[in-house]
């Protein structure tokens, strides 16, 4: 009993100890040491009870922990699903472990497909290579930006999920949908790159930080040539610029500045731009000023062209000598040019929009159909003729009438419709006056032709008289008779002079120059002009004053004119002095004369004088202060003297008198001057002369004269007869020594033609051409035509004498 009992007790005790150890192990701790628990202790301390209660606590603890876990899990799940990013959890073999609903939304798929997603497929290479199967992937997370997946863009972050022991079994990948951001960036980039306008970014000091391709193109710079340079380096000097302080203002006040600037590109050409500067981001971190500028150079060029054209138009209108008025469709004035302003005595500002008829100051009651009907109706009416002009009489502000020529034309708009009218006024007062003058001058022309005719006839008559008187003088038997006849001769000479002047009246033309001794010449003109006037005259020439080579009749016309003027200046009579002296003209002279020797003829009166303001006008044609003057006298005189290579000038003091000075080139010697001496030696010549003239009395008297001189004369009255006679004489061996041929013959067979025929027969024939007109071309250039000499009708004895002398 004892041993068995003891033995069994021991068995039990050992069993208990063993189980307690078992339980302790389950508890997670070490088993007891052998001496730690005896039977007594077992019974007193109740180890199994303790352990049981400990288990109780353990379970309780576990439950609590579980609850916490559940809550945590729920929290995580809530976060997981509600977070704005897509989350994908993969294991280290790239298999999908879990993901949130957001990811599904982002990738636009349902849940199921996600599981079957092949990591490798979706993610770009770089990620794949880095992470897939990368078990040695370390601590740090990695970020990838703008990854393109399925037409969207994501920012991806990969974070390893570490367990407590430090190993990584999972990776958490977060997806952030940045598609919108990327798109707007792309859009911005597209705009930036493709814009035609320049986009430049500046910092507040004006340094260029960035620019788009358009800016580079416009400024002609290569990629980054201008980056870092100040904007002032591309601004043209004379244009207003944005200064740095304004840039600061743009940034600080966030205001926008509109600008128009002139830039200079890299090639140095000028570019006009307009646009605006505003506050903007230069890059992620820096704020500055952005400018968007448009190249308006072309527009500016067009603007400048337009301006120039406007200017041109304006200037043209201003300089048109006619008045131009434009009216709108209501016949209101739109524009008047300067000339119109002057003509109508208005100013352009006061006539704007005024009715046209109000500014046209008609002299009589008058109305323009343009105003009555209005432009639209007028220009389309039947009565309108685009080429018609009509005349109106207007009254100027001084109250005198003046005539204008009116020309009206429609103003056509851009769409070819009538938008108004243009009225052109031409002041024709002067034109009409000139027409009148021309009429007068043609009257004068007619008169002069008539005068020529009369002169011609008179010359013939005078020739007859002259010849007869000369003859009579020769045959005079007493001195007293001779003297009387001499007077008669002089009278005829004077008459001849008169007719000469008459015939050359108002006729320009060739000068028939001859050497003249001024003293006699001047005296004779004075005699003629001033005889019978209330003025007395005094002709004074210095001793040995030079001769002049002049057209006598013309010069006498001039002197005559001056004398007449002098007379008219002294209506109550007075002294007229005619002085003549030599004068040398050197280089310093103010006279319009070449250097040389001249003769100065002065005609001086003591009349009322000519005011200084008029002194340079008196030689103008049509200028006259006389009521019935033609204004041609001095003009013609001036022209005549000019043609002689001389000059005529005036010197006058109002109230004291007037002096006209004529300068004529002096003749060095008297060669050519036919003195009276020569011609007084009358001889008998045994010559044969053929005389041709259409005038019977001329023929008769001249023949007589010649016979007196011992000449054998044959007189013919026609050209044909002349040729006939000449040929006959030649045949008979008795040729004529001299032929005197009148230029004008009836039937046209005049001197010239006869000469031609005669020289055909005998080239050496001596022919003298004769005419009543001193200015005849043939007379002047007789030598050129082959004539031996010339004669003026009426023939003076001494001239004939001289001629015969020299054959």
């Amino acid at each position, binding site marked *: 009993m004892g041993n068995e009992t003891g033995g069994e007790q021991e068995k039990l005790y050992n069993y208990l100890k063993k189980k307690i150890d078992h339980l*302790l192990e389950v*508890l*997670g*701790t*070490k088993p*007891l*040491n052998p*001496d*730690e*628990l*005896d039977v007594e*202790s077992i019974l*007193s*301390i*109740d*180890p199994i009870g*303790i*352990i049981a*209660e*400990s288990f109780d*606590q*353990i379970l*309780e*603890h*576990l439950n*609590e*922990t579980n609850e916490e876990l559940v809550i945590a899990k729920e929290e995580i799940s809530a976060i997981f699903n509600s977070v704005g990013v897509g989350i994908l959890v993969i294991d280290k073999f790239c298999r999908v472990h879990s993901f949130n609903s957001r990811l599904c939304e982002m990738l636009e798929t349902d849940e199921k497909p996600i599981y079957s997603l092949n990591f490798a497929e979706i993610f770009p290479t770089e990620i794949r290579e880095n992470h897939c199967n990368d078990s040695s992937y370390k601590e740090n997370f990695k970020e990838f930006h703008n990854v393109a997946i399925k037409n969207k863009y994501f920012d991806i972050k990969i974070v390893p999920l570490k367990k407590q022991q430090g190993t990584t079994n999972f990776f958490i990948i977060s997806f952030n949908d940045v598609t919108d951001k990327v798109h707007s960036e792309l859009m911005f980039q597209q705009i930036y790159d493709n814009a035609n306008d320049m986009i430049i970014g500046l910092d507040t000091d004006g340094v260029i930080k960035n620019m788009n391709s358009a800016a580079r193109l416009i400024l002609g710079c290569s990629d980054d040539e201008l980056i870092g340079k100040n904007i002032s380096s591309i601004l043209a000097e004379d244009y207003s610029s944005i200064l740095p302080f304004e840039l600061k203002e743009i940034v600080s006040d966030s205001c926008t500045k509109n600008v128009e600037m002139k830039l200079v590109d890299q090639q140095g050409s000028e570019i006009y731009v307009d646009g605006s500067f505003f506050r903007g981001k230069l890059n992620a971190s820096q704020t500055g000023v952005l400018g968007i500028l448009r190249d308006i150079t072309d527009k500016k060029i067009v603007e400048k062209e337009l301006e120039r054209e406007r200017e041109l138009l304006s200037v043209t209108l201003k300089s048109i000598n006619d008045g131009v008025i434009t009216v709108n469709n209501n016949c209101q004035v739109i524009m008047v040019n300067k000339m119109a302003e002057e003509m109508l005595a208005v100013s352009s500002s006061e006539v704007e929009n005024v009715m046209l008829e109000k500014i046209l100051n008609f002299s009589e009651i008058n109305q323009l159909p343009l105003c009555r009907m209005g432009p639209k109706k007028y220009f389309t009416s039947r009565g309108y003729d685009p080429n018609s002009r009509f005349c109106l009489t207007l009254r100027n502000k001084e109250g005198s009438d003046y005539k204008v020529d009116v020309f009206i034309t429609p103003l056509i708009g851009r769409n070819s419709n009538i938008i108004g009218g243009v009225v052109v006024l031409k002041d024709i007062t002067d034109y009409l006056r000139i027409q009148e003058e021309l009429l007068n001058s043609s009257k004068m022309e007619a008169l002069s032709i008539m005068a020529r005719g009369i002169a011609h006839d008179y010359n013939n008559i005078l020739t007859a008289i002259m010849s007869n008187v000369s003859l009579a003088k020769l045959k005079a038997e007493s001195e007293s008779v001779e003297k009387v006849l001499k007077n008669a001769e002089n009278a005829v000479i004077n008459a001849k002079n008169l007719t000469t002047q008459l015939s050359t009246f108002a006729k320009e033309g060739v000068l028939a120059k001859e050497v003249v001794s001024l003293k006699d010449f001047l005296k004779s003109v004075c005699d003629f002009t001033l005889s019978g006037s209330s003025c007395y005259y005094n002709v004074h020439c210095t001793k040995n004053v030079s001769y002049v080579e002049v057209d006598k009749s013309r010069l006498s016309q001039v002197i005559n004119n001056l004398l007449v003027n002098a007379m008219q200046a002294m209506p109550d009579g007075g002294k007229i002095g005619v002085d003549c002296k030599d004068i040398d003209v050197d280089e310093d002279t103010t006279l319009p004369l070449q250097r040389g020797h001249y003769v100065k003829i002065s005609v001086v009166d003591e009349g009322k004088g000519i005011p200084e303001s008029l002194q340079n006008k008196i030689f103008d044609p049509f200028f006259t202060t006389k009521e019935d003057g033609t204004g041609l006298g001095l003009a013609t005189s001036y022209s005549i003297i000019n043609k002689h290579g001389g000059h005529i000038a005036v010197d006058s003091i109002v109230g004291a008198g007037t002096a006209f000075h004529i300068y004529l080139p002096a003749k060095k010697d008297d060669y050519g001057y036919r003195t009276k001496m020569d011609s007084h030696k009358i001889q008998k010549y045994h010559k044969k002369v053929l005389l041709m003239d259409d005038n019977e009395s001329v023929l008769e008297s001249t023949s007589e004269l010649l016979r007196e001189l011992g000449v054998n004369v044959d007189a013919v009255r026609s050209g044909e007869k002349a040729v006939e006679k000449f040929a006959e004489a030649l045949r008979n061996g008795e040729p004529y020594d001299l032929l005197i041929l009148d230029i004008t013959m009836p039937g046209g067979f005049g001197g010239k033609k006869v000469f031609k025929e005669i020289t055909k027969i005998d080239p050496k024939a001596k022919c003298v051409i004769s005419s009543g007109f001193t200015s005849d071309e043939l007379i002047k250039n007789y030598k050129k035509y082959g004539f031996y000499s010339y004669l003026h009708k009426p023939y003076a004895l001494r001239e004939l004498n001289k001629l015969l002398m020299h054959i």
Partner: protein
Amino acid sequence: MGYENKSFDLRGQICPSTLLTALKKINERKVQLKEGLILEFKVDNRDAINTIPESATRMGYRFDVEKLHGFYKIKIYK
């Protein structure tokens, strides 16, 4: 009950085991422990330094082991 330390001196005790004794104490005072009681056990048994904390941890307690002169002080608390 408040924050107090209940200290037990288990030095020199071999039998019954220090572990079981400690566990018993812990079980008896599980309510107070929840409320903030801190139990201290002074032991010189080297095994006990491991076994007590191990068990207590499983049961959801935290522990501190302090080595002092010739003995250890184990703190158990919730």
